[in-house]
């Protein structure tokens, strides 16, 4: 299996959880065990769109109980004899090997996953800033020799990149350090926020400079937060910024 694998360096390990739960896209080569027409195959691919039931395979790192997974889309790409190429967008924790097996069962001829390439993990896609291990070794050596920070940006992205799909709330400088100490975000600290936040949504709390302060769980919707004058708007779950980056001023008030 090849493709998009976001690798977190040192402090950015704190955002791994957010990546684990983010959706994925794959290009899959499925091998049929018998003859089927393109029409039959397309029909079965379509049947597996939306919600599917899966029991994790024997060799799995999670409890083997039946669970549902969202399949955002399955796109037929090509078919050559018994080889079927398709693209699938799915929720985290969907087993594509299992998906192929199940589609083979529905076709009545059996099938297995032959090859798999991940083309997306959350906000990371395979075109754009993706790099190989070879690139990493090469650019790192170049960086050590030239000490030009532009070289670092060729193969390393700020951890905020990994949080791009999570709705954002930007806060005042004066609210930052309290959050870094684990306090919840209250309404007066909020400067701007994205649409689509609901009570229970995971949100990224950022400074006006765009630095991630923490991951938090919203306790109100976008519309509610806009109209709130006081009270908690999000519970801090994972602090990402070290304490003391911004001045401590939740007692003194002003910066």
């Amino acid at each position, binding site marked *: *299996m*090849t*493709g*998009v*694998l*976001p*690798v*977190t*360096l*040192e402090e*950015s*390990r704190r*955002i*791994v959880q957010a*990546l*684990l739960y983010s*959706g*994925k896209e794959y290009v899959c080569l499925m091998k049929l065990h018998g003859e089927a027409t393109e029409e039959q195959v397309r029909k079965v691919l*379509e049947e597996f*769109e*939306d919600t599917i039931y899966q029991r994790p395979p024997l*060799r799995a790192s999670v409890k083997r109980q039946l669970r549902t997974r*969202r399949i*955002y*889309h399955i796109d037929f790409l090509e078919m050559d004899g018994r080889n079927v190429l398709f693209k699938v*967008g799915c929720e985290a924790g969907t087993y594509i090997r299992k998906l192929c097996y199940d589609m083979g069962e529905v076709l009545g001829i059996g099938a297995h996953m032959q090859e798999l390439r*991940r083309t*997306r993990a*959350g*906000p*990371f896609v395979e075109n754009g800033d*993706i*790099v*190989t*291990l070879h690139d*990493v070794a090469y650019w790192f050596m170049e960086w050590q020799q030239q*000490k030009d920070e532009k070289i*670092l*940006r060729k*193969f*390393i*992205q*700020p*951890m905020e990149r990994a949080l791009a*799909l999570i709705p954002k709330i930007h806060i*005042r*400088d004066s609210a930052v350090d309290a959050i870094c100490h684990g306090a919840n975000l209250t309404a007066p600290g*909020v*400067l*701007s*926020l*994205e*649409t*689509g936040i609901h009570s229970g949504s995971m949100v990224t709390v950022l400074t006006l*400079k*765009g*630095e991630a302060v923490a991951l938090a769980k919203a306790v109100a919707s*976008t519309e509610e937060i806009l109209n709130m004058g006081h009270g908690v708007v999000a519970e801090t779950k994972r602090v990402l910024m070290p304490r003391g*980056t911004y*001045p401590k001023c939740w007692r003194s008030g002003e910066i």
Partner: protein
Amino acid sequence: MPRSVAPWEIERKLLVKAEDKTNPRYGHKPEERPAEEYIRYGVINLDKPAGPTSHEVSAWVKRILNLQRVGHGGTLEA
């Protein structure tokens, strides 16, 4: 059948609740962090090669960059 909306297809708008400025003395824009900090708060969008496990691949990155802790988001095996 209607396609369900994938998280990356959702379009969001930024709405302003209050205006304020940020003090340039504190923190940095993510892309302007000093080199060492930039690395420690960095993520690599790696193209995993066939063969080694996700775990092995991140261990290699750790060795190449001479870091203490390197992890990966979403194992790419099964």
